C-alpha cells in the first residue's frame, strides 16, 4: 500500500456510505412481497439520475474492492506484489465491465 | 578453539551514554576511520544510562553557574574529587545538554514559558536537573541509539562480551580486545589502535543492587588485570530505598525513587516505629547516605520487616494523590504485586553507583597508551559521593570527549601494534576454565559473595568485618575456580556468563574491601563505624590500587586542590550568600 492507493480506497469507501444507505433503503422498499421485474425496471428505465447513481457506485466499488483484494492477496497468498497488482487490476476491470453492463441493462430503454 | 579476528581503528566497549557518545563523536571527527562498537547486550538496551530516572545536572539557567555546580560536586564528593575532572564535567555538561537537545534530538521537559525545566535534586543548591518526565534515561539512550543505528559506518557487535584487554607484544600499549560472541559462544579478537573502556562499572556484587543485570564490573576487572591503577575503590553509593521482594526475584534491589521520601513518605521499622528521628533531625529527608545508614542500623539491630528490611509508607498522603503523583512508581509496584499508594512496601538500602574506577586524565586517556576510559568505569569526578544527576552527565560528557580525543590520538600514533599472542591465548584459556571443572553450585556461591559484601563491605564497615571479608573473598574465589559448568552448548549460554560475571565481581570486590580497609575515616559513601570522623580535609588522600606481580598494591595519594581548597569557594560573595 502507498498513499495513493490508500487515498483512493478510503475516498471510495467514504463515498459509498451514502450510496450504500440509499441502495439498502431501495432494497428494503423493493422487497415487498409482490415485487416484479417490471416494477424495478419501470422505475429505472430512462432515468439519468439512477444511471449516474449506480455509475458512481460501480466505479467506487470497483476501485475500492480491487485495492482491498490486492492487499489481501499480498498478505494472505504467496503472490508477489506485481502479480497481486495485475490480478487486482483485472478484478477492477471485471467489476467495471459487469457493473456497467448491468446498469445499461436496467436503465437503457 | 579458533579465534575469529577483526581489525578496526577505534574500538568502543559498551553502549551506555559513554559508549554511544564516543561512537558519534569519533565518527564525526575522523572521516575515514573504521569504528567498532561492541556491547554485552543489544545496542543501547543494556547498561544503566537507560535506567536514569531523575535527570541530568547542568548549569544552564542564568541564575545558576558552572562554579556553583562545581562547588556542589566538590562538597558532595567530600573534597576527594580530582578537581580537573570535576571541572571538565560541570563545564562541558552545558554544551553536552545542548548537543543532546539540538543535535541528538532529546526532547527534555520545559517550563510553561517554554524554557528548559530544571528540577530539584538532593545535595544541590540550585534546581538544575534537566529531565524528561521520570524516564530521562530512556529518552537519552533511545535518541543516541537511533543516531548510532543511522550510521552504518559504525560496526556494531551486539551481544559481544569483552573478556580481556590484550597488550602489544612489547607491553607498552594496548593492541586489542578479546571477546566472546555471546550468541554463538565463539571467541573473537578485535585488533584496535585505540580502545575506549565504557562498560559502566556497576556494584552488582551486593545482595541488594540497582544496576542492570548485564553489568558486573567487567571493565574495571579487565583494567586491573592489565595492571592499570584504580582509585576510590571503597566508594560504593547506596540508595536508601530499594524494593525488597524476597529472595529469588530479580525485582529485589530495584530502586524506589528518591521523591517518595521527599514528598513526605515515612520509613517504619518492623515494630512500626518511624525510626529516622533516632538518627537525624531531618528524618526521611536526610541525605541518601544518612538514611541508608539509619535503615542499615535498624536491620543490624533486628528490627525488621518479614523479609529483613523496613517499610516505606505513603498512604497517609492519600492513596489517590500518591497514585497520581508517582504514577510510574505505583504502577511498577503494582505490576510486581505491591500496593505502594495504599499499603506498606518493604525496602532496603541498595548498591547503586560505583564512584571508583580507572585513574584517568581529563582527556580520558589512561596509563596505558591507546586505552581510554569514560563513564562509570572512570574515576575521580565524584570523589566520595556522586550527586544525583551527575552520573549521566559524567558518561555523556566524557564519552564525547573520548570520541573527540581518540581520532586525534590516532593521527599521532599510526598503525596497529603487534599483538601479544601469549596473553591472548592465556585469556582464551582463562575464559574456558569452568568448562574443564566439574559442574557445581554456582547459585549458592553467588549468594555467598552477595551476602559477604552486603554484611562486611556494605553500608557501614569496620576493621574486623573487612578482615573477615578479605579472607572470605579468597575462599569464594578459590571455590569459584573449582566450580565448573556443564560443558555443553556454548551458544547464548547465560550460565557461562554468570560464571564470568562472578569472576569479575570477585576480583573487584577484593579491591573494594582492601581500599575500604585502607581508608581509616568516613567520607561520603564510605562509613567506618570504628573511624566515624571525616579526617582533615586539607590533607585529604584518595586510595589507589594496582595489580602487580606480587599482588595488589595500595597507596594513599594526596588530593591536589587545583581549583579550590577546603574552606574556600569559587562563588562570589553575592552568589555564596544566596
Amino acid at each position: 500500500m502507498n498513499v495513493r492507493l490508500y487515498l483512493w480506497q478510503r475516498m471510495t469507501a467514504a463515498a459509498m456510505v451514502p450510496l450504500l444507505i440509499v441502495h439498502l433503503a431501495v432494497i428494503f422498499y423493493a422487497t415487498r412481497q409482490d415485487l416484479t421485474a417490471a416494477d424495478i425496471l419501470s422505475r429505472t428505465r430512462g432515468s439519468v439520475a439512477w444511471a449516474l447513481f449506480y455509475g458512481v457506485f460501480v466505479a467506487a466499488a470497483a476501485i475500492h474492492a480491487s485495492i482491498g483484494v490486492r492487499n489481501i492477496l499480498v498478505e494472505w497468498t504467496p503472490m508477489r506484489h506485481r502479480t497481486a497488482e495485475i490480478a487486482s487490476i483485472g478484478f477492477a476491470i471485471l467489476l467495471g465491465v459487469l457493473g456497467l453492463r448491468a446498469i445499461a441493462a436496467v436503465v437503457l430503454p | 578453539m579458533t579465534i575469529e579476528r577483526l581489525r578496526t581503528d577505534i574500538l568502543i566497549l559498551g553502549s551506555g551514554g559513554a559508549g554511544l557518545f564516543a561512537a558519534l563523536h569519533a565518527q564525526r571527527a575522523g572521516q575515514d576511520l573504521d569504528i567498532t562498537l561492541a556491547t554485552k547486550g543489544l545496542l543501547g538496551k543494556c547498561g544503566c544510562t537507560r535506567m536514569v530516572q531523575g535527570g541530568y545536572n547542568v548549569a544552564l539557567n542564568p541564575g545558576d553557574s558552572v562554579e556553583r555546580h562545581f562547588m556542589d560536586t566538590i562538597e558532595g564528593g567530600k573534597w576527594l574529587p580530582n578537581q580537573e575532572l570535576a571541572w571538565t564535567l560541570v563545564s562541558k555538561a552545558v554544551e553536552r545538554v545542548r548537543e543532546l537537545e539540538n543535535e541528538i534530538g532529546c526532547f527534555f521537559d520545559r517550563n510553561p514559558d517554554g524554557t528548559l525545566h530544571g528540577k530539584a535534586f538532593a545535595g544541590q543548591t540550585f534546581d538544575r536537573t534537566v529531565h524528561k518526565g521520570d524516564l530521562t534515561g530512556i529518552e537519552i539512550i533511545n535518541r543516541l541509539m537511533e543516531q548510532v543505528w543511522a550510521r552504518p559506518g559504525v560496526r556494531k557487535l551486539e551481544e559481544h562480551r569483552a573478556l580481556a584487554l590484550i597488550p602489544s607484544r612489547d607491553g607498552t600499549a594496548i593492541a586489542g580486545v578479546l571477546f566472546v560472541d555471546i550468541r554463538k559462544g565463539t571467541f573473537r579478537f578485535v585488533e584496535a589502535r585505540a580502545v575506549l573502556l565504557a562498560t559502566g562499572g556497576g556494584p552488582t556484587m551486593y545482595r541488594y543492587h540497582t544496576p542492570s543485570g548485564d553489568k558486573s564490573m567487567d571493565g574495571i576487572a579487565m583494567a586491573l588485570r592489565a595492571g592499570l591503577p584504580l582509585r576510590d575503590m571503597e566508594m560504593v553509593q547506596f540508595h536508601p530505598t530499594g524494593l525488597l521482594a524476597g529472595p529469588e526475584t530479580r525485582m529485589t534491589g530495584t530502586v524506589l525513587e528518591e521523591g517518595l521520601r521527599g514528598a513526605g513518605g515515612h520509613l517504619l521499622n518492623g515494630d512500626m516505629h518511624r525510626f529516622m528521628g533516632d538518627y537525624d533531625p531531618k528524618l526521611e529527608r536526610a541525605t541518601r547516605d544518612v538514611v541508608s545508614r539509619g535503615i542499615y542500623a535498624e536491620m543490624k539491630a533486628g528490627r525488621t520487616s518479614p523479609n529483613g528490611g523496613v517499610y516505606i509508607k505513603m498512604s497517609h498522603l492519600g492513596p489517590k494523590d500518591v497514585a497520581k503523583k508517582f504514577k510510574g512508581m505505583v504502577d511498577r509496584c503494582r505490576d510486581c504485586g505491591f500496593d505502594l499508594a495504599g499499603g506498606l512496601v518493604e525496602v532496603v538500602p541498595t548498591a547503586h553507583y560505583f564512584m571508583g574506577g580507572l585513574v584517568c586524565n581529563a582527556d580520558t586517556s589512561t596509563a596505558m597508551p591507546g586505552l581510554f576510559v569514560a563513564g562509570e568505569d572512570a574515576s575521580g569526578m565524584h570523589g566520595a559521593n556522586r550527586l544525583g544527576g551527575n552520573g549521566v552527565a559524567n558518561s555523556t560528557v566524557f564519552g564525547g570527549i573520548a570520541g573527540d580525543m581518540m581520532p586525534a590520538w590516532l593521527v599521532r600514533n599510526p598503525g596497529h601494534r603487534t599483538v601479544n599472542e601469549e596473553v591472548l591465548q592465556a585469556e582464551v584459556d582463562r575464559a574456558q576454565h569452568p568448562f574443564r571443572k566439574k559442574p557445581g553450585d554456582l547459585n549458592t556461591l553467588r549468594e555467598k559473595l552477595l551476602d559477604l559484601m552486603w554484611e562486611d563491605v556494605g553500608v557501614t564497615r569496620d576493621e574486623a568485618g573487612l578482615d573477615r571479608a578479605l579472607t572470605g573473598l579468597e575462599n569464594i574465589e578459590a571455590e569459584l575456580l573449582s566450580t565448573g559448568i556443564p560443558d555443553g552448548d556454548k551458544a547464548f549460554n547465560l550460565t557461562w556468563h554468570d560464571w564470568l560475571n562472578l569472576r569479575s565481581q570477585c576480583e573487584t570486590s577484593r579491591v573494594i574491601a582492601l581500599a575500604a580497609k585502607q581508608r581509616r575515616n568516613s567520607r561520603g559513601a564510605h562509613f567506618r563505624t570504628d573511624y566515624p570522623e571525616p579526617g582533615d580535609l586539607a590533607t585529604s588522600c584518595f586510595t589507589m590500587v594496582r595489580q602487580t606481580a606480587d599482588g595488589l598494591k595500595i597507596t594513599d595519594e594526596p588530593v591536589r586542590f587545583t581549583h579550590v581548597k577546603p574552606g574556600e569557594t569559587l562563588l562570589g560573595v553575592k552568589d555564596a550568600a544566596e
Partner: protein
Amino acid sequence: MQSEMSVSLWRGGEDGAYVTYKVPERANQTVLDVVTWIQRNVDSTLSYRFACRVGMCGSCAMVVNGRPRWTCRTHVSKVAKNGALQIGPLQNMPIIKDLATDMKPFFEKWQSAKGVFEPSKTRHDPIEEIRPDTPERVAADAAVECINCGVCYSACDTVRWNGDYMGPAALNRAWSLVNDVRDSGQAERLQAVASGGGCHSCHSHQTCQQFCPQSLNPTAAIAGLKRRTVQAYLKGDLKK
C-alpha cells in the same frame, strides 16, 4: 509441601519444541524469575535476554500464554492459567535460541521509517523554547516513551503477513518526530512512511495499542501519519 507450577518453554531455534518444567511457586515471582529459576536450577543452557529488571530496557519481552509481555514486570499470578505457564520467544522476529530473538529487523525498520532526529541547530545554539502545551509538543510527548520492547511488533498480524510493513513501533516513533518542531527532516520522513510498507499498510488491528506495556497508542500515531501524508500528497509535497 511447596506448591509447584508447570512451565513450558520454547527450546531451540525455529524448529525447536516446547519443554515442560516444574517450578516452585513463590509469593513474589515474575515471569522472568521463573525463567531464571529454570536456567539456574534445571538447565544451565537455557537462553533468554534481560537487562534492567524494571521495565525500562525492553530486552525481556516474551510471549506468555500466547500474549507478548515484558516479563520482568509481569507477576506470575497475573498470567498463570491453572498454575501453568507457556513461554515462547517474541513473534515476527527470527529466533536466535530458546527465548531470545534477533531484533535486528525491528531496528532496521525503525530506520527505514526515518525514526531518527534530523537536527536543525547545533550544540552552540541555545535550546529552543517550546511551550509544553502546544499541540505539537503534546503529540510528540504522547508517543515518546517507547522502550522498543517489540511487544507491539510481535502482536501485529500485519507485520506477520506483510514482510515490508515497518510495524507499529517504528511508525509511532516517526509520528513523534513529525510533531517535533525542531526536526529538519520532515519531507523525507513523510516520503518514507508514505511509501510501500509504511503507515498505509496498517489495518488498525489495534493489538499494538492494547498490548503496549508503556500504554502508548501506535494505532493513533499511525492514523496521524496517514492523515499527514494524505495532506502532503494532496498538496503535491510527496514525490510519487
